[in-house]
């Protein structure tokens, strides 16, 4: 039964998440533009871009890249389906990592110097944020009493009240996961970076469109992770979660526009230090009190 629900949820997520993600991406572009003193594109611009990409000729440096990217998208949707149907948070975390891996392999498979640099950096980014993500799942378990996301709806108080330090840790690595500056080492949408496209250098047309859609899905999933910290038994809490998620998204955009890209050493060390302090200390406190 759970399997069926998860699969249906995955299909629904695959339809709905791109819509929400697309709007978020449009919002990102508008807000970023305003922060930079520009008017910016219409809010549906990401949609227009992807529609145009989908209509372009299939051009690729090898025959496998598109397949890997499609896999990455499928697993991103599966992860979203697991999460939004209230499934196991750890499984969700593992499946989204699988999605990242396929994205990385897609870049490696091109054997293009820029894409390979991007892929290596993306691997490093995964290594940087992974400990905090796992500790977040453990923190969730300790606060909610279960790894099932649906458990939040039977709580008396949102889990952020007990694992707020873990929440802060999540906010830190969220910047890496969303590939926002200062942690946009593998690929970026700021034209002034030393390597701009990195991972996606060799992806074009429909393949690039899939990558964009995957990012939308990822964004919606990660915002779900943020929101889950603020949900409890009360139905109104979902509204609160949405508001918080939007606020966090705005914060990410603000960070993106105000910090310069850092070196990998700083990213790795700071992300691991945050995981150790925010995750480790919070969990230790929960265990021993």
């Amino acid at each position, binding site marked *: 039964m759970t399997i069926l629900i998860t699969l249906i949820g995955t299909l629904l997520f695959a339809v709905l998440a791109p819509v929400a993600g697309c709007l978020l991406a449009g919002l990102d572009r508008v807000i970023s533009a305003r922060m930079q003193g520009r008017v910016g594109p219409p809010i549906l611009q990401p949609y227009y871009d992807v529609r145009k990409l989908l209509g372009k000729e*299939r*051009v*690729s440096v090898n025959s*496998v890249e598109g397949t890997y990217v499609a*896999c990455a998208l499928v697993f991103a949707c599966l992860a979203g389906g697991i999460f939004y149907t209230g499934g196991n948070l750890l*499984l969700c975390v593992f499946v989204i990592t699988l999605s990242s891996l396929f994205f990385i392999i897609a870049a490696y498979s091109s*054997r293009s*110097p820029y894409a390979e640099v991007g892929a290596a950096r993306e691997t*490093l980014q995964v290594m940087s944020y992974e400990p905090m993500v*796992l500790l977040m799942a453990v923190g969730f378990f300790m606060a909610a009493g279960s790894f099932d996301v649906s458990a939040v709806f039977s709580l008396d108080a949102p889990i952020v009240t007990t694992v707020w330090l873990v929440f802060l840790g999540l906010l830190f690595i969220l910047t890496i996961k969303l590939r926002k500056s200062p942690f946009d080492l593998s690929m970026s949408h700021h034209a002034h970076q030393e390597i701009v496209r990195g991972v996606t250098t060799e992806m074009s047309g429909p393949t690039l469109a899939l990558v964009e859609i995957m990012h939308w899905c990822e964004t919606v999933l990660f915002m779900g992770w943020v929101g889950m910290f603020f949900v409890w038994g009360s139905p109104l809490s979902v509204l609160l979660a949405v508001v918080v998620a939007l606020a966090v998204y705005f914060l990410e955009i603000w960070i993106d526009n105000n910090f310069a890209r850092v070196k990998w050493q700083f990213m790795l060390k700071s992300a691991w230090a945050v995981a150790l302090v925010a995750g480790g200390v919070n969990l230790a406190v929960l265990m021993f009190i």
Partner: protein
Amino acid sequence: MAMLGFLIVFPLVAALLLMVARQDKARDAIVWASAIIIAVASVALVAMNLGTQTVLFEFSSPVVDTICTLLSCVIVGVILAFAVKYKNVWAGVLGLAQLALSLYFELALAHGMSVPYGLYVDSLSLLMAFIIGVIGSGICVYALGYMKDFQAHEPEGARDRRPTFFAIMFVFLSAMFVIVFSNNMAWMFTGWEITTLCSFLLIGFTKTEEAINNAFRQIIMNLLGGIGFAVALIICATQVGTLSFYEFLVIGVSNPALVMLAVVALAFAGITKAAQMPFQTWLLGAMVAPTPTSALLHSSTMVKAGVFLLVKLSPIMLVCPVPSLMVMLVGAITFLLCSFMAISQSNAKRVLAYSTIANLGLITACAGVGTPEAVWAAEFLILFHAIAKSLLFLCVGTAEHHIGSRDIEDMDLLFERMPRLARYMMLGIMCMFIAPFGMLVAKWATLVSFVDMNQIALIVILAFGSAATFMFWAKWLGKLAGIAGEPENVELTVHKSEWAAVLLMAVLLVASCALLPLISAYMVEPYIVSIYGTLGQAVSADNLWIGSIAVALVVIVLFAGVGRASKARTVGVYLSGVSRDNAGRTFQNALSGESTATVRNWYMEGVFGEKRIAPVGVAFNTIIMVAAFVMAAIGMPMML
């Protein structure tokens, strides 16, 4: 019971035949036939006893006891002979010490103690029998083709020592069966010592100076473990009053203080055999041996004997804090640090070795936690690690003979140069670290069991270790996946026997990942229920099935989806618009000359280098083990 005897004796017969067979054809026939017979017999044994509780067989024989005593002497004799020949003092001293202890034990203590039920099976030993019988003999078949190439690379006129090689491989299998089926701890000890000696001979097989040195390092470390085992036996005989492993475990659970020192000593033996830090260097050194040896040592034998013993002890660990803490910490620290060090390695076999040690560390930590959930995780870690690691070693061995290197940087473009092999290798790598494949499901269960026990240190270690694991596997995977130009396909000359073994491992891997929920229900859970009385399973069946679906998807993509001709127009990669020969990745440089764009992987020597990290682990774990011995030795008399 006849089946157990057959599995123990038959490989010995095969070994004898292999010693006398000097023709390639005869050897091929014997190895193929014996491997198939052993595999079929062990599968039959598993099938006949599927889901069994512990079954003890009434079997005691003074003759076997005498043989074991004699074998102990012969083993030490061989070691002493080598120690004298190569003037290695430590090996000699430790060998003599062990001989003294084991003779004292056998003649003075064990003589009056009989173990009426000499043999047993339970679901854990069945799992081990499956691993030894199917994967171990698969590796023996693989060795046929590999050793032909190996012999061809030897200098002209070199003596053909392959008969010895294959004989030792089969003796190894037999000794492993002895370890997993013996209820009489004295017999188990003999099997234990035979595996030590066999791996010593296999590691030193090439007789180069490096091989001899590494073989001696192995024997010295494992003799230490053997001494630990002998001490445990003496304590069992004098204090606990039994040599039956089953009774020992029962007594241990009800009276942990009585067996504390014995368990610490046995766990120490297990830790040395499982190559945990500070003993990790023997397994790293073992890679000088021909690749089938590495595959055998890493996947189905030797190190698995170590973790098998630890997992067996885990019910006692649950109630006995001193050995539990020691095993948990040693395992966890090893997992973390060896995962880090794997990042800094570019030699494929060394990466595999570090990953083996790290995963054994995880199994060790699970055994130390000792809850039903942790044992569930440990058993799956053992199973999947055995399959995936043997697949990877076999692939690396074959690649080495065809591309002339075992360096990951030289595996560029393997996806085109050895298309089938690269896919198998990618499958093996994926199984080692990524969901939904088996190892990750087991790690998932490990995490849950740590959380249940509130082991904050272990949780944090697992989180960071897993992140490091992602790094070193993903970058290797990336190297394999690269496609550029149309390099020559060099895998056409791979031996049939090698393909057969690789295919066997790949099929086993996919089947065991996809059927994980069934394996859990019929092979792993029965053991846990029979030992703990309750069922502990950290990952629900529904989630396991979701994983199975994802496995099927990934396998289909890897073997049917990628590599097909696509309709897309193929273009060159982006080389800043100044490319000369796009397939060769060359471009026009600033002096109008030609440069090649190459990308090397990230090794981060400064952060994760061996020199920085290894001493930390060695120091920590040595202190932990010394402390555990002291506490057990002082604490036991006080608590009794």
